[in-house]
């Protein structure tokens, strides 16, 4: 396994945030509505992991360092893990495990529908993220995993639809997301320079 320490560091960081938030909640540092804060932070954390995941390929191109691609899968799986926790926290803290109400929300609220579609997309990617699936799906695997761009769009839309009065925070994440997508348009991608390490063995 290449870059074991880098992989371990990302693993530890991924674990650390939810554990730290739980500690804060237990100590009463999150105020009177910690459940809502957990839901928001986990959702935002997933978006951040998604954006970082999508930065790996451009970074690899810029620097020529293979390490970026090596950790890409783990970062994507962290995005999925945070979304699973986000969904769980929503069910427990916001809906109070009222499944009937969850059914109503799934039918009636566009932002919940969009969020659920994003979750299903991530689920498909997480399930097929192993080497066995890569081999079995062959060329289709790459096509399937382009779904990640759609998922980013769904995530940003989901986020936009919960904004109540101030778009600033959303605009920052959306700008980064759009930038990462635009980079991948072939004419743009061809102009991305390799800054260091041309031809270094990977």
């Amino acid at each position: 396994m290449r870059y074991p320490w880098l992989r371990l560091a990302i693993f530890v960081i991924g674990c650390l945030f939810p554990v730290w938030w739980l500690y804060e909640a237990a100590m009463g540092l999150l105020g009177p509505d910690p459940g809502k804060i957990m839901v928001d932070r986990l959702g935002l954390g997933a978006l951040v992991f998604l954006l970082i995941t999508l930065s790996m390929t451009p970074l690899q191109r810029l620097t020529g360092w293979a390490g970026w691609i090596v950790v890409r899968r783990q970062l994507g799986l962290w995005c999925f893990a945070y979304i699973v926790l986000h969904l769980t926290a929503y069910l427990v803290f916001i809906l109070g495990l009222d499944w009937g109400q969850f059914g109503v929300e799934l039918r009636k609220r566009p932002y919940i529908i969009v969020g659920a579609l994003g979750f299903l997309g991530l689920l498909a990617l997480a399930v097929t993220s192993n080497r066995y699936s890569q081999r079995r799906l062959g060329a289709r695997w790459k096509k399937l995993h382009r779904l990640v761009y759609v998922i980013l769009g769904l995530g940003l839309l989901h986020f936009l639809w919960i904004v109540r009065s101030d778009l600033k925070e959303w605009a920052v994440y959306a700008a980064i997301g759009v930038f990462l997508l635009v980079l991948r348009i072939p004419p743009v991608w061809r102009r991305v320079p390799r800054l260091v390490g041309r031809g270094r063995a990977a």
Partner: protein
Amino acid sequence: MLIKLPRSSDCKSSEITPESFYLSRRKLLGASLAGAALGALPRLGAAAEVSRYADVEAGSAPGWFSDKLGATRWQAVTVSGEAITPFKDATHYNNFYEFGPDKGDPAANAGSLKTEPWSLVVDGEVAKPGRYALEDFVKPYQLEERIYRLRCVEAWSMVIPWLGFPLAEVLKQVEPTSKARYIRFETLEDPKRMPGQRSGFALIDWPYVEGLRLDEAMNPLAILAVGMYGRELANQNGAPLRLVVPWKYGFKSIKSIVRISLVAEQPATTWQGLAPDEYGFYANVNPTVDHPRWTQARERRLPSGLFSPNVRDTLMFNGYADEVASLYTGLDLRKNY
């Protein structure tokens, strides 16, 4: 005033707020009796108020407020079977977009608000318009303590002991003309002291505006508040003067009021203007009419801990149906949400 008690089956024992979180009703009664007894002694009264609620940060009350506090009618309106929200939560979990969009922003940023001196304009369809210094405006009224549920449109709720006076008494003083059908309120606009008003991404068109139908404003439950938890309002809670209409979603209870106008037409209010399909002019608490983006059938009563979520059913008119339902007979509350 009688408030309906929830059925015992509505509340699991795991949902009960831990005792350390709140002042029990008995303690509150005891404290208020002690307060009343001490209040009989002219100078000691003020000192006794400090301990009325647990863990209340002492403010720096303006002179006029301290003067009025002695004659307060404590617990003029209470809610039975409800724990009062801890002061810390009521003052550190706020929506006051003038000071930023996050719940903690108002507590962090509202220190810059200058509440003294404060002047207030009363105008429009009134026999006695005028511009008042706040201390002159509040002079005629006796303070009453009103312990009300507060239900936010975002589906969380609290129980807050306000100090204020009925809006109806103010209306009596300013004498609305026969043309007056609505009352319109306006919050301070001061971008220098209100960072939220400087944000280029804010969707709100400042100043914040709210309004009521005149008969709603005359309802005895509607008050103008100047204090909470036995002290003056904290800035983030709308100092020095705010509206409290407990049967409506919290955003109707406009903060830091600088202008009260009696008008003939229904005023264009802030949230209704921003998203008319989500926020209506009436904004009555109604579990049967959902916000388009979330259900209003249930609410998180704060504090709602991570390991003891306090999710409960929302009551029609926030539990004040007996007092206010008659205001809306014949009105389709699905259309007039």
